[in-house]
């Protein structure tokens, strides 16, 4: 379980302080696919980076599985991060490493035995149906394939948590569905708790069981996803809903009709 208690983040700049997050209180239960939805600049990227301390909060506490991690440093911090996988909007694959070497990277930095690393990486690539691309380089893959490699890489250390920062924003709607369904499957079959940052209502609706709406550094609404969007209380949630229907009807339609092609059994 991840808990944020009165968390705030202030950036100090030469032209004064900028408050990115203010009094954030959230509880993310084990097994959740927890959505954090908001417009760009609302603070959602900062928020997700607090969970593995890529950003440090300036106020409040972050508690993961009962441990206050807010001030973790050095080795303790690296251990924590190994237990929290992360995927990114632009995939962030290492361009000079093969697909296999990318997936092995998190194991390599933890100094796991080399022979087992390759075996484990192949296992993960089978999970995302890309084992045939193991010796290719990221530049030879499509966006959707690259993100699936990134997912395999994020799972390498068998994390309990996975952070997804706008993971499908750079993908077309068809590929988005494949990636989202893969995430949902990983959540279900491996029991990985997910935190999904998105600006897209369709993404939250497709995979998130619970969703928080963030606006200007504040959480304005939290609840069951279906309920939240059936009966939005906040202005931002209503706006996102309007935006979703007005501007993205195509993607909404295609979101319900696609089948994922990653159908191999889970071996991790």
């Amino acid at each position, binding site marked *: 379980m991840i808990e944020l208690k009165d968390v705030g983040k202030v950036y100090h700049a030469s032209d004064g302080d900028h408050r990115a997050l203010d009094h954030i209180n959230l509880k993310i239960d084990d097994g959740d696919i927890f959505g954090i939805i908001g417009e760009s600049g609302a603070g959602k990227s900062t928020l997700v980076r607090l969970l*593995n301390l*890529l950003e440090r909060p300036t106020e409040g506490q972050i508690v993961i599985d009962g441990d206050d991690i807010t001030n973790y440093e050095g080795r303790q*911090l*690296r*251990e*924590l*991060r*190994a237990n*929290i*996988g*992360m995927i*990114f909007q*632009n995939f*962030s694959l*290492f*361009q*000079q*490493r093969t697909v296999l070497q990318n997936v092995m*990277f*998190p194991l*390599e*930095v*933890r100094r796991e035995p080399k022979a087992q690393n390759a075996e484990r990486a192949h296992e993960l690539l089978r999970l995302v149906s890309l084992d045939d691309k193991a010796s290719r*380089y990221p*530049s030879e893959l499509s966006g959707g394939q690259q993100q699936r490699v990134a997912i395999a*890489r994020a799972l*390498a*250390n068998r994390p309990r948590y996975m*952070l997804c920062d706008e993971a499908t924003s750079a993908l077309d709607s068809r590929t988005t569905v494949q990636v989202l369904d893969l995430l949902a499957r990983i959540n279900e079959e491996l029991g990985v708790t997910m935190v999904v940052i998105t600006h897209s209502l369709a993404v939250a609706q497709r995979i998130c069981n619970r969703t928080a709406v963030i606006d200007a550094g504040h959480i304005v609404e939290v609840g069951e996803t279906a309920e939240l969007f059936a009966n939005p209380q906040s202005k931002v949630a209503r706006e996102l809903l309007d935006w979703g229907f007005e501007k993205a009807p195509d993607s909404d339609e295609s979101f319900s009709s696609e089948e994922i092609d990653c159908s191999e059994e889970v071996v991790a």
Partner: protein
Amino acid sequence: MAEFFDKYGALLAQGTVDTLVMTILSCLFAYVIGLPLGIWFAVTAPGGLRPNRAVNTVLGWIINIGRSIPFIILLVAIIPFTRLVVGTSLGVPGAVVPLTVAAAPFVARIVEQSLAEVDKGLIEAAHSFGASNFQIVVKVMLKESLPSLVRGAAITFVNLFGYSAMAGTVGAGGLGDIAIRYGYQRFQGDVMLAAVILCVVLVQVFQTLGDWLARKIDKRS
């Protein structure tokens, strides 16, 4: 033609060997000093792995001062230092020291440039998997910028090749020295031309080799 080579072949061959020895050795030593310096410079830069304004500023000064001193001045100015290091200020050893001192700050700067080009997102991703700063430098920054580092090394090599001509003034020999002594001072245009052609060909070969290697190891496209 045959007569020319009988007379000057050995001289030109020796010149080529001297030039290559000077260039290769000073390039090597310049990287031994410049590579860690460049990494340190990149790591302490604002927004770097471990920003440190004071260290970064001082390193910046050292690197810029080192790069701004004309080589021919440096060559003479550090003669006491050269004697201290290799016991002489003459010949190939006497030239390698000032060449190294001149090239190291240049190497530090281009290494820093190469490392700064590495996508910040990759460094963030590496952090998110629990990599230490040292691991990020070796496994991400150096690895991802390797093609760029190779291009930088080719530039350094060619620059040193050119600088080594001036090392003739301390009796280190080399093709540049031959061109100056025979062509400029004795008006033997044919020897000068031969030496210059050799320089041009060698530079072309090394630059092409560097470009080819950089392309070959780059997996981005």
